[in-house]
């Protein structure tokens, strides 16, 4: 095998093995940055040896063995330096062999979950959580993360370095949270995953609406979490939501790169496989027999759309009811806005407008372009074209997405033509 080919293969293996390696090493050395360095050292050794020896039968176990030996060396070398390492050295002598065997069996599920809790630690900013998670759990390079967030590589690199420092300063433990803390920490993890997905799904700025890498990584992470924490209904709820939303990725953007709204999308092109997976995840969530949480409710709403053969056949009454349940569980002006749309579809635009007007003055929605956008749409349906045009224009001025801006301006122009008829 030549070097470039070895490099690509090693990259692929890194992607598969990195989270497990880093998770197991973090448990040993209690330092996520050091764990990543040790894992990367092992990859460097692999890059040197594999072109000559060929890829071992079980590359994961090979890497784990190399990395763990290095970890043990490192701990012993530093035992004098710090009480923390002295303690680790003592422990590592006790655990290393058993540990190695366990790692070889691939029993790292709990370590992985602990690692996710760590990368989504409340001491970190949201951006740092996302970047660190993408780096350590998805095996993305700094460059890939930077590209996904339309930011520079040094910015991301710095963000990651700082995040690792914060975690060390916090001495954040690599323990599994329990009881009430578990629920809280889990919801922080789910938030990071969904943030990642949304960042990819509805790029907040720039010319493109969809940045697929982020969506795919978020989905993959969600699927991994569903296996790590199978008894948590909201994990399945989130997976269901992402699978169903991802099923529409290919229809969200038209030929010219313009956004296509849900009701105008070509349903024949929705990805049936992802819909099926989403419905199955929702079923898994329901089977746990607990009341649906916010993600599961949103997934149930997404499922209503996915199951309607045509947009005219959408069960808006059910969707309005689900939004009502959602607004009781997780009240927010944005949920209200969505409820307004569903109510308008189910019972008529006047009822929807009533809800919109109730939330219109809220400062939380001050810069939210979808508020005037929805209001404009309802006014247009009520034949109040002049008012509608003003709302569309306001919305266009507020969005940062170029394509969306074009769409809104077109709506405004359409209303303008109608109002002067």
């Amino acid at each position, binding site marked *: 095998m030549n070097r470039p080919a070895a490099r690509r293969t090693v990259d*692929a293996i890194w992607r598969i093995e990195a989270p497990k390696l880093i998770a197991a090493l973090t448990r040993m050395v209690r330092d996520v940055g050091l764990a990543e360095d040790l894992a990367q050292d092992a990859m460097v050794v692999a890059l040197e040896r594999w072109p000559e020896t060929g890829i071992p039968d079980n590359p994961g176990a090979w890497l784990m063995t190399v990395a763990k030996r290095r970890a043990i060396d490192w701990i012993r070398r530093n035992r004098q330096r710090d009480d923390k390492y002295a303690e680790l050295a003592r422990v590592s002598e006790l655990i290393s062999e058993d540990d190695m065997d366990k790692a070889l069996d691939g029993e790292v*599920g709990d370590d992985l979950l602990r690692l996710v809790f760590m990368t989504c630690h409340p001491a970190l900013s949201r951006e740092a959580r996302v970047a660190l998670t993408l780096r350590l759990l998805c095996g993305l390079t700094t460059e890939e993360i930077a590209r996904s967030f339309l930011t520079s590589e040094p910015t991301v690199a710095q963000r990651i370095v700082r995040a690792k420092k914060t975690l060390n300063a916090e001495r954040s433990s690599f323990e599994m949270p329990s009881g009430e803390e578990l629920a809280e920490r889990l919801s922080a993890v789910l938030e990071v995953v969904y943030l990642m997905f949304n960042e990819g799904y509805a790029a907040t700025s720039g*010319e493109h609406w969809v940045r697929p890498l982020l969506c795919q990584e978020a989905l*993959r992470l969600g699927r*991994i979490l569903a296996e790590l924490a199978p008894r948590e209904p909201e994990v399945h709820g989130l997976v269901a939501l992402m699978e169903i939303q991802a099923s529409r990725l*290919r229809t969200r953007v038209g*030929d*010219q790169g313009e956004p296509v709204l849900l009701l105008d999308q070509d349903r024949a092109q929705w990805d049936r496989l992802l819909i099926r997976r989403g419905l199955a995840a929702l079923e898994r969530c329901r089977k746990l027999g607990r009341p649906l949480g916010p993600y599961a409710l949103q997934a149930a709403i997404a499922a209503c759309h996915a199951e309607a053969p045509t947009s005219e056949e959408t069960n808006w009454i059910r969707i309005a009811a689900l939004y009502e349940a959602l607004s009781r569980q997780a009240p927010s002006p944005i949920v209200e806005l969505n409820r307004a749309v569903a109510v308008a579809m189910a019972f008529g635009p006047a009822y929807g407008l009533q809800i919109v007007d109730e939330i219109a003055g809220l400062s939380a929605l001050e810069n939210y372009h979808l508020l005037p956008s929805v209001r404009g749409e309802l006014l247009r349906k009520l034949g109040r074209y002049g008012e509608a045009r003003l709302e569309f224009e306001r919305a266009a001025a507020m969005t940062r997405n170029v394509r969306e801006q074009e769409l809104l301006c077109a709506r405004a122009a359409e209303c303008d033509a109608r109002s002067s008829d």
Partner: protein
Amino acid sequence: MRFMMIVKGTTDSEAGTPPSPELLEAMQKYNEELVKAGVLLAADGLQPTSAGIRISYPEPGGKPKVVDGPFAEAKEIIAGYTLIEVKSREEAIEWALRMPDPHGFGQGEIELRQVFEPHDLTSEPEALAGQAALRKQLDERRRP
């Protein structure tokens, strides 16, 4: 990107001989690994071609010919498939290499095929424009 790992048929799979308990266990473990890694989209095993039907069009524009199985040439027969979502071709190969030898006896064969990606999944403006042009061309051709 999606890849389909196609497991080719063998004399055993065609005869309907069930895989050994060891192979079954290995396959199950492998599938679990795919699930845990978040890459598995779908997987199914297919019944032998003796239960299959082939529909062919030997005459251009003519009627289809319907033939019941079994069919010869085990290597051209699909015994099962596993659909995965990965980031690179190398990652797909790596996963395929980890699949247990599907049948042993020197007949095991796995074929990896990449699934066509719809135009949305590329964020290249040129590719999008190319797709649009192609579609327009097709539309024009369809019109009488």
